[in-house]
């Protein structure tokens, strides 16, 4: 029954078959583990059976826009990997509908369907809920957008390639303070979202370290789009900058309305702002927005340039950070599989944990002893409708 289900799922359009023909005969249970070891190392590694990989993304519901970006990133990476000899991947992308129950169910299904590794889920809260299932079953997980503290503490099978807010924000605040001589700021954040709330905490800590006074903390809801009352309130404190922890949906109207109300001070944001839509939708209002982020979209490293080009060619749009991290994620998985030339769960787990100085879209990438990502973060500022690095 299970094998049948897998076959059906593999036949669905959401499934990308990287092998010319999915063998579909990897039965349930532990039997598969042994077959997934191959010969050779790195580029010469050859594994007979396709390597099944599951991805749990939020393709519908509140987080659909991130999930969709991630889907694009993963599919692009999968396409590129398919052209490489030796190892074939069978990537199944599933939708958790931004619902914890679906996330848990999907992890459960992937674990029993014997995937080598699970990518995702999109949201940190979902990761805290679902990752323990993989941990208990001994299935490695690679988070590609989980930034909350404690996700990798769930266990030694849980990894992520997404820098936490606390790895990005102190640098951002330090740079901005230096650049704009910040003394007094207003902090605004949506307090009903785990990502933005933890971003706020990181901002608070960093501001305190830099000795910047917080004149006021203003909260809103992630579904809010009219910020005029809040901005009017913020304006009264006459801050040197607005520090905002928000997702892109809120960032665009917030930035537009701030400028409209005559707030011309810099607006400082975190990972949530690192999205080309900011410039596309907020237009001129986005000028001067400072964004601390895990991915330097304007980086000229060859991997990044190739990624930007390939992404534009395939989707006719610019990628955002979610796409970049997702793309990098699958590439890192390939790296890990090839380094040990085995798609065993244990082998992948070992190899992922040992990744060091891998050249990626995100820069030189390593996994540290806590299974968190280590790579350069970047502070960008919007200039002439483009992100440029704030030096």
């Amino acid at each position, binding site marked *: 029954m299970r094998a049948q289900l897998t076959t059906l799922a593999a036949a669905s359009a959401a499934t990308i078959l990287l092998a010319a023909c999915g063998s579909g005969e990897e039965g349930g249970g532990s039997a598969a583990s042994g077959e997934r070891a191959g010969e050779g190392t790195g580029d010469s590694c050859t594994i007979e059976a396709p390597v099944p990989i599951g991805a749990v993304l939020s393709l519908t519901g509140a987080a659909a826009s991130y999930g969709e970006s991630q889907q694009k990133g993963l599919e692009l990476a999968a396409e590129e990997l398919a052209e490489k000899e030796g190892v074939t991947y069978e990537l199944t992308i599933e939708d958790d509908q931004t619902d914890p129950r679906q996330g848990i169910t999907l992890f459960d299904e992937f674990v029993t369907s014997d995937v080598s590794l699970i990518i995702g889920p999109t949201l940190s809260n979902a990761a805290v*809920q679902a990752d323990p299932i993989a941990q208990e079953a001994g299935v490695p997980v690679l988070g590609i957008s989980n930034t909350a503290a404690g996700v990798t503490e769930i266990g030694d099978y849980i990894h992520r390639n997404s820098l936490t807010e606390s790895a990005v924000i102190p640098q951002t605040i330090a740079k901005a303070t230096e650049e704009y001589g910040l003394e007094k700021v207003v902090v605004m954040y949506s*307090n009903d979202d785990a990502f933005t709330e933890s971003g706020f905490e990181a901002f608070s800590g960093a501001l305190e370290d830099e000795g910047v006074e917080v004149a006021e903390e203003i909260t809103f809801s992630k579904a809010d789009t009219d910020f005029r009352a809040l901005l009017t309130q913020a304006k009264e404190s006459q801050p040197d900058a607005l520090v905002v922890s928000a997702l892109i949906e809120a960032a665009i109207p917030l930035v537009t309305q701030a400028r409209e109300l005559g707030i011309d001070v810099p607006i400082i944001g975190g990972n949530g702002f690192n999205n080309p839509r900011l410039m596309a939708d907020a237009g001129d209002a986005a000028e001067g927005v400072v964004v601390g982020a895990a991915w330097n979209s304007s980086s000229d490293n060859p991997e990044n340039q190739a990624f930007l080009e390939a992404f534009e060619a395939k989707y006719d749009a610019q990628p955002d950070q979610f796409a970049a991290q997702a793309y990098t994620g699958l590439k890192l998985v390939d790296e890990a599989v090839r380094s040990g030339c085995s798609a065993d769960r244990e082998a992948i787990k070992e190899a992922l944990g040992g990744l060091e100085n891998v050249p990626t879209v995100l820069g030189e990438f390593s996994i540290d002893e806590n299974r968190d990502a280590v790579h350069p973060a970047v502070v960008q500022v919007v200039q002439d409708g483009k992100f440029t690095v704030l030096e």
Partner: protein
Amino acid sequence: MLLEYATPLTFVALGAIFAYSFYAVLIAGQLSLGQAGFASVAAFSAAALAPGREEVGEVPALLIAVAIGMTVGALAAVVLGLPTMHLRGVFLAIATLGFAEAVRVVLLNSEWTGGAQGLAVPRILTLGMAWTALAVVAYWFWRMGRSRYGRALEAIREDELAARSMGIDVGRHRLAAFVTAGAVAGLYGVLFAYYVRLIAPNDFDFAAAVEGLVTAVVGGSTMFLGPLLGSGFQTMVPEIQRAVGVEAGWIRPFLASLLLLVVILFLPGGLASLLPRRTRMPASSGKDDEDGDGRSHLATRRHPGAGETVAALTALGKEYGGVHAVRNIDLEVRAGEVVGLIGPNGAGKTTLVNMISGLVPPSSGGATVLGVTIGRTPVHKVASAGVSRTFQHSKLFNRLSALENVLVGGHLVSRPTFLRRLLWLPSARRDEQAALEQAARCLRRVGLADSAGIRASALSYGDQRRLEIARALASDPSLLILDEPAAGMNHVEAAKLSTLIRSLAADGLTILFIEHNVGMVLETCTRVVVLNFGEVIASGTPEEIAADPAVIEAYLGTEDDEPVTGSIAEGTLADPTGGDPDDVAPDAVINVHPGAAGTLDPPDTTPRNAT
């Protein structure tokens, strides 16, 4: 096989428990969206207060958490319920929704809940535990279904006013239903928390509440298995879509919504309506079991002795925005009397009986009915003093069977059985049996014994009127008020009704009835009161009234219903059995239910405890 689907099956159980918290109030006709709030407070309180599994072990930790959660949920329901129980329909829904949203915002802003990042909770719940909890909850509602309490809730759902008039304390019952919902929602919150490992206030938002409501309604909110079916449906739809290979993305929510729409449009009553429903019939062990065995399980009532004052009205008046519907009425009704209230449309008859039965408070004057003071006494108290009534426009409990309608009518004289039914105590069974027999007797008395299993709304008009009378009789009243019981009946039916009323009076029942069929009134009543423009213009024996020139001028003169006038002038008085003999034969064949003729005619021998 089962273990492979452990996760979805656990969510089926959890979803069903949450849906039961909606079912708990939907069954009483209340639409509440506050359950997500109850679940939220309960889950967070339990997670924060319950001891860890290291201290007491897994199962005790969960049980303690459940106890805390259900208590907190129930308390929250009391706090919210007390001020909001007077709200109805959408108003209640929005008020409770406002509460749930406020809870969510407060929890988001609280330190101890971890805000949006949530509170970590150990996973203790297993598939078996979830289904055990579900079984307990389902059992609760199953046993509630056919208890006196369960019937009262259904009656409130179908027609609140009629339920009140049957002596049901609607406020208390609604609050009880609400608190049950709070406790069940609390249970859900805790179980959910102890399964998903991390709870955030947003897990209990508006969308969650709506989903709970959808689950309950899709499953069916009138049948205890409904929530389970609904949850199975809602949980399995995504599973099936995945299994069938529907592409992940927009098409899945689209299909799920479409399916939901189809179910709701084409299955009135939800998925549960697909299940065959057993209609309950009285066990007809003894055809006429008036041997006292059955009655001993019913509460007995002390009826006023013949000639004692049943109702005393002094200068009673009612004014609606300057219009005097009723003014200055002095009237005394004594036990054993059959008082007919006649008068042209708009004369204030219904307003008067509404005041007597406690539905409408008088604006001047006062009245005492069976020892209670009208105006300050809630309707159900008036009813429990021994007043029972029918309504001008039938107010039956439409989705209940005829028998169930009458069972609700017997609310006041039957005993509460729910808690004893939970424990399967034989005494509950005996009490239910007694109530059933009593209801069956009342149905037989009005000639509806064969229609016991038929939904009230499916009965013919005349049968509905008779069912209302049976329902009113079931409470063993001292004063029976009938508001136009013969409206829409033909001669034969009216004559039978007249016979029935007189036989009831013969048993010592005091009857006050409004009727337009003057002939019938004159032949049935011992006394007739004529109202016009809110005032009594005449009162006396039928003979006196028929001869009263004031009545003829003020009332009969304006009446253009020729046959009525005719019947007074000639036949009816002389022939108290009613109607033209020529008309009776053909009508009887066509209009009377088979068997009904035989049961309605003989005077009922049910002993009444008249003292």
